[in-house]
Every structure is written in structure tokens, then in C-alpha cells.
């Protein structure tokens, strides 16, 4: 009988204990909780600026945690129940934040844009990437503040460019115009002869696919969307031309198309590839291997200095249900928008600061490339965030990637995209 009673108590304990633990955990969190994915912890001095913040405010304790793989449903479930695991989330691209912004789950941060963070203190279009229409249609707001920027740009390996005879007056010769296809291809053919791992690399995954396709069309025409705003340009002569050129580059072997970002970076970091169309920060990472910043230089696609390129950002944001909104804003202003946070990342990983003031003192490398990068960044545009962006990107990926790899004819791919995306909601969540 005694053994049975013990067993019953144990069974009840096993059933009830988790409920108590969950309740206790909910009560225990009293401090500012900051979440960031592992790559932010690695590429930004988050721990350092947090320590500085705590030293400046001895009564505040910040719990800094590494966020797991992003899962919107997980957090939305919490928010629907009125609680949140974190007060500040450092990181998040437009496509990642789309669902939570359209669901109106984020705290407006526009009231922070004054003083050192006034709108005109930001670089080019970076702040625009955080400017959205309100979900109820009543005006616009800033539910997330971009704290770093990236520009899609062509990076070249200077040694290979010199060997290929494409180096003049201390800089790479410009890429010939898209209208002169033969000269354009010859340019990369020359690089190919001296680049064992490929003349030109592009990453054709779901994210970079957008930049690979839209960037050159923007450089050619000054626009990359359909005139009616319903998706990327898939009908113009420029769209057909560029997708055809992508196929030709792949067929001729001057284009090394890879399907994951890891594959792209590993090829580029061998130092045996001629050029790479990617984020300027990722291109700079070659220097972390060779330790010589003269190993790379930047180029724009023909026309990009005038018409711009594609930019994207990562943002910091606060869930509406957080009970520490004011404290969160203070942390964002003092830690995330500090010179230390933004310049360290540029100096180590090439992530562009979003504040113009941070491009001067404190920047330790690539000063000679700043003009090229900033002139392209200032004229650049973010990718629109359509209401049905996830479905749209899936359909684009299905046909665009196949076409770029030469597995589907250009006309067929573009027609398929057109017919299958006609009914999608192309309302741009971003303020225009």
C-alpha cells in the first residue's frame, strides 16, 4: 500500500510540476530581455555595448540571449496570450518581419527619430527600409529601425583583374554596358582565364535571387518593378535581356551559379574567383582571410552609379506586448545606435553603419572604397515588401532559378511567373 501511495504521489508530481515551473518562469523575468540571433552576436559587439549600458545604468539589468531559429508562429502565440520572451530583438530582414508587421505586433519606434537619430542623420535609403504603412491604413510608421545596411555590389579580386588586363589607373575597368552583350561576355571571359574557381559568382537562393535579378534591371532602367507595382519587372525588354544574359553566363561557364550562401562565400574566400555579386560586407570578408584590403575592389553594374542598386537592412524592434517599451527604446538608442556597435561591425565584417556620422573617425579600413559604396548606397532602393511576399518569392524561386540555370526558357519562366502571381496581394507594406 505504501509503495502504491508513493507511486501515486510521483505520478501526480510528474503531471503537476511542469505547470508550476512554467508559472514560476513567467514570474521570474523582471529585467530587460534582449534577443539576437547567433550571427548578430558574432558580427556585432553586442555583449560589450550591453555591458557599457549596464555600467551607465547600474539599476538596470539586461539579459542578453541568443535567439533560436526565427519562428514567427512561436512568438505570435506568446503575443496573442499577452506575454513575450523578449523586450528587444536585434536583427530581422524585411521578409522575416513582414508577417509580424502586417499583423501589427510591433511597437512604433518613430518617436525615437530625433537628436542624434533624426531622420536626416541616416544614410540614403536605409531608414526607408524601416518605414511602413500602418496595418489599419491610417498613415505610416516605423515598427522597426534599421541598424545596419548592405548594398548589393560587384566585388572583384584585384590580383585576378590585374592578370586579366582589367585593371587601369589603380582601379578595375568598368563592366561594359548591358547593351553590348559581346563586350560584356568578353569581360568575364578574360577573368575566367585567370580565375580557377570561376569568373563570376552569384548565389541563387531565395534571398539573393531577388538582388541578382532586380539589381541589374534597376541599373539598366532605373526601376525594377512592373509599372503597376505588381511585382518585379518581368515584362520589359530589360527583364528578358538580363535573364537571357544570366543563362548565357551560366552556359558559357563565366557565371558560377550556386544555390546556397555558404557555397558562394566559400568559393569567394578561396581567393581564386574573379568577381562576386553579393552584399558588400560579405565581399569584404575575403580580407579577413588574406588580411590585405587591397585584395578586393568594388564595381557597380553598368548604370548603377546613376540608377542605384538594391539595399537591405537588419532592424531592431520591440514587441507591442512588452512591458518595458521605454527601457527598450533607451537601450536601442544608447547601445544599438552607438558608434562602437556600428563601427566595430564595419571594421570587422563590413556591415554598413546606418548613421552618416559614423563614416568618419573610427572607420579603420576601406576608406578608399567608401565613395563607390556610398554613391551606390545613396541611390539605392530596398526590395518592396509585398503583402504576399512569401508566396511571391516561392513562385519566383521556382521559375527564376530554373531559368538562370538554363533549365527553362526565359519567355516560359517569365510567363509562368506572370500567370501564377496575378492574383497575389502586391500591396507594398513599406511606405513609398
Amino acid at each position: 500500500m505504501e509503495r502504491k501511495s508513493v507511486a501515486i504521489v510521483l505520478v501526480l508530481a510528474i503531471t503537476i510540476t511542469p505547470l508550476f515551473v512554467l508559472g514560476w518562469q513567467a514570474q521570474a523575468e523582471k529585467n530587460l530581455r534582449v534577443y539576437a540571433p547567433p550571427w548578430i552576436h558574432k558580427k556585432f559587439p553586442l555583449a560589450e555595448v550591453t555591458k557599457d549600458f549596464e555600467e551607465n545604468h547600474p539599476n538596470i539589468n539586461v539579459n542578453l540571449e541568443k535567439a533560436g531559429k526565427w519562428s514567427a508562429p512561436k512568438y505570435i502565440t506568446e503575443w496573442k496570450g499577452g506575454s513575450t520572451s523578449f523586450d528587444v530583438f536585434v536583427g530581422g530582414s524585411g521578409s522575416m518581419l513582414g508577417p509580424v508587421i502586417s499583423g501589427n505586433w510591433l511597437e512604433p519606434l518613430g518617436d525615437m527619430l530625433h537628436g542624434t537619430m533624426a531622420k536626416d542623420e541616416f544614410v540614403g535609403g536605409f531608414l526607408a527600409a524601416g518605414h511602413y504603412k500602418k496595418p489599419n491604413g491610417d498613415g505610416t510608421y516605423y515598427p522597426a529601425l534599421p541598424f545596419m545596411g548592405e548594398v548589393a555590389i560587384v566585388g572583384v579580386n584585384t590580383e585576378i583583374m590585374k592578370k586579366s588586363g582589367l585593371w587601369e589607373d589603380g582601379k578595375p575597368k568598368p563592366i561594359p554596358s548591358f547593351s553590348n552583350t559581346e563586350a560584356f561576355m568578353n569581360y568575364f571571359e578574360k577573368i575566367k582565364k585567370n580565375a580557377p574557381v570561376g569568373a563570376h559568382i552569384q548565389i541563387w537562393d531565395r534571398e539573393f535571387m531577388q538582388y541578382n535579378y532586380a539589381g541589374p534591371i534597376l541599373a539598366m532602367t532605373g526601376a525594377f518593378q512592373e509599372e503597376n507595382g505588381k511585382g518585379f519587372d518581368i515584362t520589359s525588354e530589360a527583364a528578358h535581356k538580363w535573364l537571357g544574359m544570366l543563362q548565357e553566363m551560366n552556359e558559357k561557364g563565366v557565371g558560377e551559379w550556386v544555390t546556397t550562401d555558404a557555397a558562394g562565400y566559400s568559393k569567394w574566400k578561396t581567393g581564386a574567383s574573379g568577381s562576386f555579386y553579393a552584399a558588400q560586407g560579405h565581399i569584404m570578408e575575403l580580407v579577413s582571410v588574406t588580411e590585405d584590403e587591397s585584395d578586393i575592389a568594388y564595381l557597380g553594374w553598368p548604370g548603377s552609379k546613376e540608377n542605384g542598386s538594391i539595399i537591405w537592412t537588419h532592424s531592431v524592434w520591440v514587441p507591442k506586448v512588452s512591458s518595458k517599451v521605454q527601457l527598450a527604446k533607451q537601450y536601442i538608442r544608447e547601445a544599438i545606435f552607438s558608434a562602437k556597435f556600428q563601427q566595430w561591425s564595419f571594421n570587422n565584417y563590413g556591415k554598413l553603419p546606418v548613421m552618416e556620422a559614423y563614416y568618419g573617425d573610427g572607420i579603420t579600413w576601406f576608406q578608399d572604397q567608401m565613395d563607390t559604396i556610398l554613391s551606390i548606397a545613396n541611390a539605392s532602393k530596398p526590395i518592396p515588401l509585398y503583402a504576399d511576399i512569401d508566396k511571391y518569392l516561392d513562385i519566383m524561386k521556382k521559375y527564376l532559378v530554373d531559368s538562370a540555370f538554363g533549365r527553362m526558357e526565359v519567355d516560359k519562366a517569365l510567363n509562368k511567373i506572370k500567370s501564377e502571381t496575378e492574383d497575389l496581394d502586391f500591396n507594398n507594406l513599406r511606405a513609398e
Partner: protein
Amino acid sequence: MSQELKRKLWDKTKLFIFLLPTLVFIFGFIGFPIVFSGYLSFTSFNYAKDALPTFIGLQGYADMILHDSLFHTALLNQIKFAIPYFFITFFASLILAILINELKRWVTLFQTIYYMPMIISMSLVGITFSWIMNPNLGLFNRVLQLVGLGSLTRNWFGDPSTALYGLVIARSWKMMGFTLVVFLGGLASIPGDLREAARIDGANFWQEVVYVILPNLKPYLLIGGIWVLINSFKVFVLPQVVTEGGPGFATLTLYYYSWKLAFERLSMGAASQVAYITAFIILALAAVMNYFLSTSD
């Protein structure tokens, strides 16, 4: 209340208390999700934007089956995956089981060796095969080069024409051990007299297999076959870990598409529709298999 009644009542109460954790688990984590996702499959429900699901009846299923090109891609990929996976896993484990059963010694050793991949997690299998089939450093391409087949080397998971079949090999390698053990169990249950009688009647090894072993193995073939069949459609971890459904959508499977719908697009209704269609396909195929392999006696 009599003492006897009190005792019976106490016994029932104890039974209920002991069953409570299991019941909570079954209803909370299996029963409720099945019923609720069944309901969701008849609704349109964006988890971020909609407060409540909107009932749309069979419209979602019709749209999914008739108009969703990614669903068509996922279904086609699933079939392309399931057929070689079924044949490799089922027949290879059957052949191996028959051969191991013929051994006089080391049956347990071989059984253990072939079962070992079963205890490795699927994601680890994915990572391991990513390395084995790495285009530059992988063992597979290196072996091809060493035996003079260098022209066949390629980026196995980066090439849309081979990526899916690379996943088939990885999954078959992992899952073969279970069916092998099931078949070995079945082979051990066949009375030795039957095979001996066949041999006395002049049957060779092949005839023994066809006329004695396989007919007596039918219940085990059914269990093993249904297991393999179910697993040929439950494909999620490998494409997620190794290829992320790519290149393009070359390895997008039904389960992975269901996950994408739920956790990328937050479209819970559509995700439930794909999950239920997949479950229906599995049940239908299992019924067909049951019809052909079930023993009537």
C-alpha cells in the same frame, strides 16, 4: 458502501491516476492537434493577421490540388522520392535479411551493424551525407575519381537532377535496419522442417526463397512494407537540413511544403490541407498494400 465496492472504486481511481499522464499526452499532443488541424484544413487562416480562422469548406483543398503549382512540384518530388526509396529500402533489407539468415555465425553482429544507423538522428545523417557528397571534399566523389569514374563526379546535392536521389540514398541507409530486423524476425519464425522438406523434394535455394520463405514471410512483409511506405512520404528533416528544399524546389517534399506554408507563410489552413492530403495518400497506399499482402487464413 460495501468494502468490496470501495475497493473496486479505489482500484478504478488508481487506474485512472496512473493513466492520467499518458491520457493527457495523447489528447493534448496527438488527439487535439489531429482534430484541430482537420478543422483548420477547411479554413483560411493567416496566423499573424487573422484573429480567427474563416471557414471555407473544401475550397482550400480544391485550390491546393488544382491551382497551387508548388503543391504539384512537391507531390511530384514526393513520388519521385517514394518509388526508389521504397524499392531500395524494402528489397535491399529483404535480400540482406535472407542472406544474413543463411549465415551460421555472426547473425547478431550483422544485425547490429545494419541496425546502428537507426539510432542516429536524421539531422546528423543529413550533415554526414552532406560531407560525404560534398563536391570538392566529399568521399563519394573521391572514390569515383580513384576508380577511374572521375567524369561522373558532380555536386550531388547542388544539382537538381541528383539532389533528390542523394536524399533517397541517405534515408535508405538510415532506415534499412528496422525492416531488416523485422524480416530477420520473420525468417526465424519459419519452421526449419518446411525448408528441409523443400530441399528433400529437390528445391534449390532460389526455389526455397520463392515457394517457402516469401509466402511464410507475408505478415512481416506487410508490416515492413507499410513501415517503409509511410516513411517514404514522411520526408522533412533531410531536405530541411541538407538542401532547404532546393536547388530551386528540386527537393521540396509534401511535409516540407506543409512546414513552409505553416512557418514561413503562416498560412495554417493551407498547411493543414497539405498535411491531410499527405495522410490520405499514405492511408490509401497502405490499404492497397494491405489488400495485396494480407493473409486470409
